[in-house]
């Protein structure tokens, strides 16, 4: 239960910071959401299958430790999800940049087009690095108790 409270609190702080800075509508772009979420999930599903991906997400969100014999399978699925969400954000950002650079004739449209391009990167970072990446660390702590004594290796970043 408590992790939902903290996730909600953290995400609402992001939304609050957005709202304090002005209009929140400019931070929502449906094509960018599709770009990050659908592309990121689709390529992870292509590698690991629908069932494994959703089981892994459920295991990552679960608060009580259960018999996690599949913890490694879930962890590698979430690793793939994390890297493909990041890559989908990168692809969306590059697509937005290329589009912007090809319509340079109107200087006043350059800024908004680049802002929209940046949104895919923003969504990817929030999903992959703030939500999925902590799940991976938690699954690791659950799967072997030795991990707690090896803090340097506990980060999923070792292979970045």
């Amino acid at each position, binding site marked *: 239960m408590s992790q939902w409270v903290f996730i909600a609190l953290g995400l609402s702080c992001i939304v609050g910071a957005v709202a304090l800075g002005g209009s929140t509508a400019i931070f929502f772009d449906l094509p960018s959401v599709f770009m990050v979420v659908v592309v990121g999930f*689709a*390529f992870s*599903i292509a590698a690991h299958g629908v069932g494994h991906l959703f089981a892994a997400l459920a295991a990552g969100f679960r608060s009580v430790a259960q018999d996690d014999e599949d913890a*490694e399978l879930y962890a590698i699925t979430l*690793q793939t999800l994390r890297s493909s969400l990041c890559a989908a954000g990168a692809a969306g950002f*590059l697509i937005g940049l290329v589009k912007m650079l090809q319509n340079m004739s109107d200087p006043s449209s350059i800024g908004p087009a680049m802002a929209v391009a940046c949104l895919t990167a923003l969504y990817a970072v929030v999903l*992959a690095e703030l939500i999925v*990446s902590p799940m991976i660390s938690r699954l690791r702590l659950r799967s072997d108790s030795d991990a707690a004594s090896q803090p340097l290796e506990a980060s999923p970043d*070792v292979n970045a």
Partner: protein
Amino acid sequence: MAQWIALLVGVSCLVMGISYGHSSFFAFIDVASVLIVFVTGFCLAFAAHGFLPVLSALVAGFSPTKVTDEDSGRDALTLQTLRNTICAAAVVGYIIGLVQMLSNMSEPTRIGPALAVALLTSLYAVIFAELILAPMVNRLHFRAGGSAWTAPGSGARGAVIVLLAILAHIGSMMLILVAMGIQTN
């Protein structure tokens, strides 16, 4: 079967994102970038592992059936090489495009399209190496009995690419503004 549907959904979502708005799909195809990213990347991977091993690793990556463990481990390593060479070829292609753009700064209206072409190499590499190959590498690594904590296809290389693209982009926007200022003065 399900994985082909997922791949199709992912690729068609990318294509929709490309053709959304007032932008033509053909602006995203550049022969020189395709040559640099795919031909160079594949050739250097062939040079390291041989022609047939790379192809069989790709087939194993796409196939849903499980082969033997030692084959999976070798295939994972081969695809990881391919992923690295394609990313490196994209960086080389981006730098080549940037140098070509910078040596032609006299005409500010051509800076944008030239930079767009330079960015296409990174786009191709992100789509092929990070969205298609990296999940495959993870799957083959896990099939071979490797630990999830040492999976080579993980990590936020995509985030690193975004960061580098943003930095490169801010630099080039400043260059464009400087060039436009020179033009108006």
